[in-house]
């Protein structure tokens, strides 16, 4: 099934709150091999000016990929996940993610197109706190390889 290009420019409703726990930061930091004390020790994080333990720079992908699933896992979108290759990823952090954050993610489908037998989709997840203050912008481009 081809990509449904009518999804381009679609904006989804805000996600439920994702609460960032210190254990999840520690777990993710261990999984990426980062042993910086600011991931584990609140005092080490505060010494660097953070209010609590700080997440690794790609932690926001957890929140973003959950949010992207609303689109990429929707059968109507026509994305055959067996043929998906991750093309690009970019994080813009308006501030670091720290333990205690309550994050709300809003998915934007920025681009859907077919080119040279392949499909390309670009999504943007705007992550904010509950008050709407921006935290991170996560942009992801997926390539759907042709049959």
């Amino acid at each position, binding site marked *: 099934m081809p990509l449904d290009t009518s999804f381009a420019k679609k904006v989804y409703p805000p996600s439920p709150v994702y609460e960032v726990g210190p254990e999840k930061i520690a*777990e*993710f930091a*261990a*999984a*990426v*091999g*980062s042993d*910086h004390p*600011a*991931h584990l020790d609140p005092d080490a*994080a505060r010494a*660097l*000016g*953070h209010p609590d333990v*700080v*997440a*690794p*720079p*790609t932690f926001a*992908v*957890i929140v973003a*990929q*959950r949010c992207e699933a609303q689109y990429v896992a929707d059968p109507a979108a026509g994305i055959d*996940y*067996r*043929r998906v*290759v*991750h*093309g*690009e*990823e*970019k*994080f*813009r*952090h308006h501030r*670091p993610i*720290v333990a205690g954050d309550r994050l709300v993610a809003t998915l934007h489908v920025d681009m859907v197109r077919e080119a040279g037998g392949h499909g390309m989709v670009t999504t943007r997840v705007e992550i904010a706190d509950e008050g709407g203050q921006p935290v991170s912008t996560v*942009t992801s481009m997926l390539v759907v390889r042709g049959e």
Partner: protein
Amino acid sequence: MSERPGFDSLQVGDPVPERSFVLQRADLVRYAGASGDFNPIHWNARAATRVGLPDVIAHGMLTMATAARLVSDWCGDPGAIVEYGTRFTKPVVVPDDGAGATLRVSGTVAVKDETARTVRVDLVVECAGDRVLGKAQAVVRLS
């Protein structure tokens, strides 16, 4: 911990010294659990070869996160990375042979922004002689 680089002391062209990072199958399983990305091509050789890959490959996001360690350890604050982006140019094949895959990561200070007091570090990330990330760039805020 080593001394944190100061913005004023850095110059465009300064190197961020190379480090090597080993990824084993267990690291892929652990990353799958922590990230929630359970795509079987990252842990099941049958699933990987069925889609034409030579073997299990690392999550692109694990390679990206591993490369970020060069920058966060160098600058001394994982929260100082204000932008980080990359293209995924080649898969990182992680064989189940005890040796795994070795990523070689190095960086260069490519841009200094005097107003924002940030530097852009451009990364070279190689595995088995191939560049596995393209245009991998991290913008770091320094004091």
